[in-house]
């Protein structure tokens, strides 16, 4: 297993299994964007007036690239992402990519485009459709505010070493890349083949892969990668909580040789239900006080649950007249798409469709004009916008997207509140370029993924022989080093990996599936060796095609043409084909003597030796050494006699 990403929730691993090369997820680490200045939608005098960074001794002169805000240095350039490692193995050799959920596929264009990749990507339909929306949104965010400048000097190792923290400590900056283009997105997604839960997909006849519901988001899946004898489970971003997606399928993970565990909760100490409660109460408090609420979020996922929660909450809290806005280039699509994937939803929502009613209540919020969605702050929104209001918009990093505008607009008033719900970014880092800030900040990260308690229970249930996980899970979080409950403790201990690790998975492959053709199976003669155990010797022709093996009967040699040289035929050496079976057992003396007697061999002198007996057949001048594990017949070239003796001995032995 080759580990191309060190981010535990945005994994990218490559598994070489039975001559196939399988990439598991394609996560894009976007935390790198926190090092950059926000991209404002409208000109921001504040941001443009930030002073450049000058080193103490003024030796480095990259003022244009680096700006200082509230004591922290930011790169003034189009934000860049930290890509999966590309040097560890040749990406063009990857046969398939398995995607587990739409958050874990954002690096796809970097892997499938311009790398010589010719394989297939497997994903469920919701994963593909929503993943496409998120990619389109990302591209849109970047392209609508083109930045001429692309900072590169600061990445120079010699310079980066001298920069202040946290820039100094940023890792793998040489792999950081700007966002892909929409062409790359379309091309990458055209390589996706859709799969359904529990669908068995054959790869080259050697390996079978199956997606299973993981309960985390619409269409999210864990994967089983198996042959007839080995089973690898890939668990990524799973949830046991009851939210909108279909519940997690746990039983199919049982009996794995290896379980690769990624995507646990990033907020092991935050209870999602409690966070949801905090979210609602803070929202209500701010609105009542006449302030606005800003919720930086992704355009799909938890937002559906937030809206559903608000749907029930606003009536009780008397917020019926407060406008809710969802602003994203893909807001409409995201809301529409969420309603058409009934098959992928939890039972409750599924049964709504039978009525027929839309599965999510946000349809009603839209119908009653309580929730409005806009592609951006420009256009209709600017004229219809009323305050106080609640705005859901991206990007949760606060570095690009419409959220940047609202930060500039509302940041100065302490009446307003920003509520962080996405767990991917540290909220302090996210807010850093907006300091000093008057607006209230509430941190309610909602991460429904498995916590350590749930995962240890799950592992006890499914009992994998070995667990492989990111190294982060094998020790307590650095900020809570005393919390030994916030790590995985297993027997045998999990195998940790980090970026660029190459792990040998503990497999001993011993068996392979082969098909005996019916004609061959019929011709076999089994004999019982022990009670309940029979054996049969098999001589057959092996056919291997597309990694599938079959045994066929040995073709009968073509009948010899009737020829005059018949005599010569006898002299043809036997085909180098059929060695006789192995023998087992022993030849009992008394019974053997009796047998010899029956066949007219009466003059037998028996001599006892250390290992057994020597039989001297005097008339035939033949010696037979009978021992526990061997029989040796020494005779003249009397072929009829020899074959008789041979057959007599064989009667006492088993053939294997």
């Amino acid at each position, binding site marked *: 297993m080759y580990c191309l990403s060190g981010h535990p929730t945005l994994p990218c691993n490559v598994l070489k299994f039975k001559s196939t090369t399988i990439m598991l997820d394609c996560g894009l680490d976007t935390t790198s964007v926190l090092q950059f200045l926000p991209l404002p939608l409208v000109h921001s005098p504040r941001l443009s007036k930030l002073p450049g960074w000058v080193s103490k001794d003024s030796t480095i002169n990259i003022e244009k690239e680096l700006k200082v805000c509230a004591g922290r240095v930011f790169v003034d350039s189009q934000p860049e992402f930290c890509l999966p490692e590309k040097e560890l193995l040749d990406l063009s050799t990857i046969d398939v990519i398995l995607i587990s959920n739409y958050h874990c596929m954002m690096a796809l264009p970097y892997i499938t485009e311009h790398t010589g990749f010719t394989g297939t990507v497997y994903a469920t339909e919701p994963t593909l459709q929503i993943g496409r929306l998120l990619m389109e949104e990302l591209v849109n965010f970047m392209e609508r505010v083109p930045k001429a400048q692309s900072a590169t000097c600061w990445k120079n190792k010699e310079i980066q070493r001298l920069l202040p923290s946290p820039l100094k400590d940023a890792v793998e900056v040489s792999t950081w890349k700007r966002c892909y283009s929409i062409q790359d997105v379309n091309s990458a997604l055209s390589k996706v083949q859709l799969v359904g839960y529990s669908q068995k997909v054959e790869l080259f006849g050697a390996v079978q892969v199956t997606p299973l519901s993981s309960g985390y988001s619409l269409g999210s899946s864990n994967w089983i990668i198996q042959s007839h004898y080995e089973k690898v489970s890939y668990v990524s971003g799973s949830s046991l909580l009851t939210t909108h997606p279909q519940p997690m399928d746990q039983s199919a993970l049982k009996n794995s040789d290896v379980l690769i565990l990624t995507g646990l909760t990033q907020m092991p100490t935050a209870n999602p239900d409690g966070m949801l409660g905090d979210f609602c109460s803070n929202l209500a408090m701010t609105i009542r006080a006449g302030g606005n609420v800003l919720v930086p979020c992704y355009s799909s996922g938890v937002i559906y649950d937030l809206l559903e929660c608000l749907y029930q909450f606003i009536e009780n809290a008397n917020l019926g007249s407060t406008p809710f806005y969802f602003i994203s280039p893909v807001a409409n699509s995201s809301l529409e798409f969420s309603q058409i994937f009934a098959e992928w939803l939890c039972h409750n929502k599924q049964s709504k469709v039978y009525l027929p009613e839309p599965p999510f209540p946000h349809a009603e919020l839209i119908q009653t004009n309580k929730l409005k969605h806009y592609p951006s702050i420009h256009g209709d929104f600017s004229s219809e916008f009323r305050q106080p209001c609640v705005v859901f918009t991206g990007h949760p990093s606060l570095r690009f997207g419409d959220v940047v505008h609202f930060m500039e607009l509302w940041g100065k008033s302490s009446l307003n509140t920003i509520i962080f719900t996405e767990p991917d970014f540290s909220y302090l880092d996210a807010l850093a370029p907006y300091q000093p800030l008057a607006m209230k900040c509430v941190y309610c990260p909602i991460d429904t993924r498995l916590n350590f308690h749930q995962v240890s229970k799950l592992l006890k249930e499914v009992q994998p022989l070995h667990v492989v996980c990111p190294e982060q899970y094998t020790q307590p979080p650095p900020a809570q080093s005393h919390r030994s409950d916030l790590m995985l403790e297993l027997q045998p201990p999990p195998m940790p990996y980090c970026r660029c690790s190459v792990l040998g998975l503990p497999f001993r492959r011993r068996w392979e599936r*082969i098909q005996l053709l019916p004609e061959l199976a019929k011709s076999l003669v089994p004999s019982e060796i022990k009670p309940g155990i029979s*054996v049969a010797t098999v001589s057959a022709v092996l056919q291997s095609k597309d990694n599938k093996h079959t045994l066929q009967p040995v073709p009968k040699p073509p009948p010899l043409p009737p020829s005059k040289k018949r005599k010569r035929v006898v002299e043809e050496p036997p085909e180098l084909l059929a060695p006789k079976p192995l023998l087992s057992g022993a030849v009992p003396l008394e019974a053997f003597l009796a047998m010899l007697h029956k066949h007219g061999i009466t003059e037998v002198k028996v001599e006892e030796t250390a290992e057994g007996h020597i039989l001297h057949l005097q008339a035939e001048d033949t010696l037979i050494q009978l021992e526990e594990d061997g029989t*040796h017949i020494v005779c003249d070239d009397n072929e009829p006699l020899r074959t008789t003796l041979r057959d007599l001995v064989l009667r006492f032995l088993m053939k294997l």
Partner: protein
Amino acid sequence: MPEIKVTPLGAGQDVGRSCILVSIGGKNVMLDCGMHMGFNDDRRFPDFSYITQQGRLTEFLDCVIISHFHLDHCGALPYMSEMVGYDGPIYMTHPTKAICPILLEDFRKITVDKKGETNFFTSQMIKDCMKKVVPLNLHQTVQVDDELEIKAYYAGHVLGAAMVQIKVGSESVVYTGDYNMTPDRHLGAAWIDKCRPDILISESTYATTIRDSKRCRERDFLKKVHETVERGGKVLIPVFALGRAQELCILLETFWERMNMKAPIYFSTGLTEKANHYYKLFITWTNQKIRKTFVQRNMFEFKHIKAFDRSYADNPGPMVVFATPGMLHAGQSLQIFKKWAGNEKNMIIMPGYCVQGTIGHKILNGQKKLEMENRQTLEVKLQVEYMSFSAHADAKGIMQLIRMAEPRNMLLVHGEAKKMEFLKDKIEQEFSINCFMPANGETTTVITNPSVPVDISLNLLKREMALGGPLPDPKKPRTMHGTLIMKDNSLRLVSPEQALKELGLNEHQLRFTCRVQLQDSHSDSDTLIRIYTHLKSLLKGYTIQHLPDGTVMVESIVIKVSSSAEEPNTKVLLLSWSYQDEDLGSFLSTLLKKGLPSGLSSI
């Protein structure tokens, strides 16, 4: 001998009350459970007494699978499960699960409330029956039990229609339900992978038809509607609430839009609104184009098509009305037909197949006088048009599906005997496979020849593959040897050595040493060399070694030469071999007894 048995209880050489029993690998599966539109008596439902004379069906059936929501495929379901008695799982896709109970309730209302029949299933029975339904997703492999698995494929025919593969071990059957191989205005085309089933059970409604292009039919349809409306006539289009109706609505909607037409289009019954809603929620089951554009424009939100009220039928002026049911056997379509039949300006367009016995079937056959209830006769003056819009595969489509799935045997159902006969010949000719067309109650048995899966030790396999080279040579097949160990239910193939080890058995060495006398006037060592040269020239492809310790080895057979001082020319050859080399050892001893040819050089 493993075999698969197929018995249609309905739809055998007939269209209507589809119900096919399949026995495969010891499992019994019922495919569809439909009613017959042409009958009002017992023949309406399949004859379940075939399965058992008395008692419930649960213990005789492992599962029931419904291919789509049309009543001729699911209409007998509540009767079967609640009145005859079946508590096992019933599988159907999500859209089918959603729509099926609505149509069943509709059917029940017409039968009980309007016709006053008793002893029919109740609303509660429909609900109880639907509780036994397990939803099926496309391509999902559902494990019914440890051995029986089923998988659904897209069939196109109506929203949620599926073909199903039923598999036990390496034996499999595919049942198509009704399917369509060409995408239409709202659905995609059926698709299946090369799954090579032992039997492909296909519908054959249009066994002999090869339909012209869909575009032509659509143009024709629009032209006829347009002409009738222009001359002030009324157009009645009997449809089923879901399916063809939506396709034709999309067609008319776009035509009205383009031509700026004013005549009203109505859709009967309250179902419409609901039906269209199902299409919106199950948009992933529609065709590519609709799915792609649904966010911008949902094709199932119609501007020109309005709900119909019974009183509108007497309104003057042109109009187009879609009314249910599709075969004019009951309900609103029949009522409107009665009102409009007498006017030659009007037109009725039958967009789908009509089962024998229905009024639809009668007027399509040109009957001009219809006997109605109460001995009244109805004169048919309006124009009757038939346009094949029903989404069944035509002969070409059926052949195309066979090419896709590559079945070993073919079995036709859901068609008329005569047409089946024709298609059967064609299939047997073109694909050289058996094609069956059993009548109802008649069992077709197909012998399958499954290969036996065995676990082979990787060592043995790898050794064999290394010896055999990457590509097998068909002319010189290599034989591999192994020992098959049968223990409990496992079959494992290992090398004989490993088998001994695993079974805790000792190996018994059987050796032969054979003295062969030979007259040869050379020294012992020269004789040995002469033997070596002799064998070398004779045994091509064998490993023959002359070892420094004074022996010759052929493979693992040892040959030594000795002679007594008294008779130096009489050599005694000692050949020693183990039982495993018996053939070669026996051959060599016989060969050497004949002596060495004189011409052999001793060097």
